């Protein structure tokens, strides 16, 4: 019981009602000195705990006259009990399908979600959507999710994108009206994770000698991350590169069946180190600092927090070509590959390892990270939103 009361979630949402949150928000903005005509309330959904993205994006909210608060249940949202414009900011929409076992159920849930959006719009609430992915990584009900995204896109007043190619890529599945969109890049993780362990110490801690070329695959262990295919092709990769590489794989498993495949693939590879658990904020630095380069062997994607994290720690990163424009300005250390051509991954990794040997790469990436630090990107986000709202 005590653990429940003191959980992170309670700390985050203060266990208050939607109405209480609105009143608190308005009072906080008033205390901050925000002109009450300019005060905006922004509820966001779904709240996520371990991914710091939302905290990063909203870090400059108060200085820009916005008060942001999470809502765990969309049914809680109604007209605000205070005189202030309210928006609901939608992020990852897969949660809409939580518990669905059949397409029919998924269709019903999507329909109910869109009805909720209609009701919010009828109540004068603005709808904001950040397109994180083309489709949810764990999407089981593809057609239903496409329909849901099309409906959300149609209803959204403002659409936040982080990759300039987003509209073009999404057009394969659903239309996004360009006039609603605004582009603010993914922030770096500058100041987000602990960053005080030296590369030498990190490598020593992990038993990596200075000569070992080390690649890091970071993030949840899920099929869309491409880890399985990467491990299948590891020997070919080493042959192409002409070196033996050390591989660090770190992240939380999300699928037991897939995890068994990973266990089977790494069992006979003593050069692969698997850390199959959530990596806490103070340990992230050890992995990134120890690596020569970071690899995101994804099949597709729109944005990558891992690539932004790699840049923050000054490490080159290999990403699918489609992700390169999302990290504009970091070209010194962002190397693209073509996911449909496995050999291009080896070439890209070779280039990333070459880049890592050049001290200028680390400097350039850290400069990028400073320019894109969360507070700067957060200000850009709220400025763009205010212009339209």
């Amino acid at each position, binding site marked *: 019981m005590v653990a429940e009361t003191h959980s992170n979630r309670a700390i985050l949402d203060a266990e208050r009602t939607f109405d209480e949150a609105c009143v608190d928000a308005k009072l906080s903005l008033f205390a901050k000195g925000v002109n009450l005509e300019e005060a905006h309330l922004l509820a966001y959904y779904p709240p996520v705990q371990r991914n710091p993205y939302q905290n990063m994006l909203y870090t400059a909210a108060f200085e820009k006259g916005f008060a942001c608060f999470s809502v765990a249940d969309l049914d809680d949202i109604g007209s605000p009990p205070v005189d202030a414009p309210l928006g609901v900011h939608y992020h990852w929409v897969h949660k809409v399908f939580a*518990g669905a076992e059949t397409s029919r159920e998924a269709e019903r849930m999507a329909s109910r979600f869109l009805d909720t959006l209609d009701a919010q719009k009828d109540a004068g609430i603005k709808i904001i959507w950040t397109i994180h992915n083309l489709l949810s990584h764990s999407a089981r009900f593809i057609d239903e999710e496409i329909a849901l995204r099309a409906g959300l896109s149609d209803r959204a007043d403002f659409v936040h994108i982080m990759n300039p190619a987003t509209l073009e890529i999404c057009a394969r599945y659903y239309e996004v009206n360009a006039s609603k969109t605004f582009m603010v890049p993914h922030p770096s993780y500058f100041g987000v994770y602990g960053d005080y362990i030296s590369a030498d110490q990190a490598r020593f801690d992990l038993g990596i000698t200075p000569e070992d070329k080390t690649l890091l695959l970071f993030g949840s262990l899920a099929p869309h991350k491409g880890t399985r295919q990467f491990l299948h092709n590891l020997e070919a990769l080493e042959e192409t590169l002409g070196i033996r590489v050390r591989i660090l794989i770190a992240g939380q498993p999300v699928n037991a*069946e897939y995890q068994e495949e990973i266990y089977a693939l790494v069992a*006979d590879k003593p050069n692969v180190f698997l850390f199959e658990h959530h990596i806490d904020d103070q340990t992230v630095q050890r992995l990134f600092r120890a690596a020569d380069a970071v690899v995101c062997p994804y099949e597709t994607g729109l944005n990558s927090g891992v690539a932004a994290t790699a840049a923050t720690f000054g490490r080159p990163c290999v990403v699918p070509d489609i992700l390169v424009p999302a990290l504009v300005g970091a070209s010194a250390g962002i190397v693209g590959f073509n996911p449909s051509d496995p050999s291009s991954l080896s070439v890209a990794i070779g280039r990333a390892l070459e880049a890592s040997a050049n001290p200028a790469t680390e400097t350039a990436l850290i400069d990028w990270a400073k320019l894109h630090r969360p507070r700067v990107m957060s200000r850009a986000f709220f400025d763009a939103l205010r212009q339209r709202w």
Partner: protein
Amino acid sequence: MKPDTSTKGNARHVRRLIKAGYRILPQFVLMLARTGIVDPFARRKAILPRRPLTILAIRPAAQDRVVYTLRVATGKPYAERSAATLSVTYRTFWGRKIRWSEDAARHAFFADPIDEVTEQPAYFDVPQGAFWVVSTIQRHTDTRRIGVSGSLKPLACAALPQVTWEQALLSRDRLLLESALSKAQATCDRTAARQILARLLFLLQRRADRALLRHISDIDAVFKTVPTGNAVQSDTAGFTYDALLTTPFKNSMMLSRWLKSEAIALEAATDADTILLTAGPHLGLRLMAARYAEKAVQFDGDTQYDANGLDWITVADFEAVHALT
């Protein structure tokens, strides 16, 4: 009986088990099983209850080893790791518990998808003085529904079964695999050992297996990538390398790292291109260090190599390196 499933998904998996003939144990069977005397799985396919099931048996035929043969099933479409655990404790005739390694007295079963259920023999060594064998099986989690058939009674096992190499590699039993590993060690077969360790690692995820696999792989890599030597051999050796310059290699070290350290010490000790290797202790290791320091070598006296005390390294490994010089 109210099912203890917490999600619709679990309920679906339970339905699959029931369709395959697995049943929730009737109350009277559960009650009899909890007396510790009745085998709850005898002649039935049962769904494991939430609480562990224990039975008490007399150690069979005074053997040093017992075997249980169970089939474990899941309604899920893939094999579930550590779905059920069998723990065995031993007691003397008078009921005193015998201290015994916990690792050696536990076996974690994989649950197979219903259409692929196979027998999973689990072998246990029995300590001296044991009279009673107390066997407990339990599910890994509260929400998981696991089907079991077979017997919870220990059977006598005079010796581990003779299995082929392929069968051993497919086995899920620790003792069988460790026995195969011992055979590989006896013949210093690193390739076989790596395969067995990979299987053990997949099954048990033990640090010790991972460390041994890294150790053996490192030895393999060291002997496969001995520098062929670019140093120009002089007529006379400029340094007599008659003893190791650092602490001798131990099996607890990675050979590659020890060699690097010794090679650095050798380079610091002499800048001669050619060194003289004298007969004596650690000749093989000195030869390797010289090769890794990229020195040309001359030999003085008998070049008899000795691999005593060096796990997973043979005289033939050193002789192969010698042949390169």
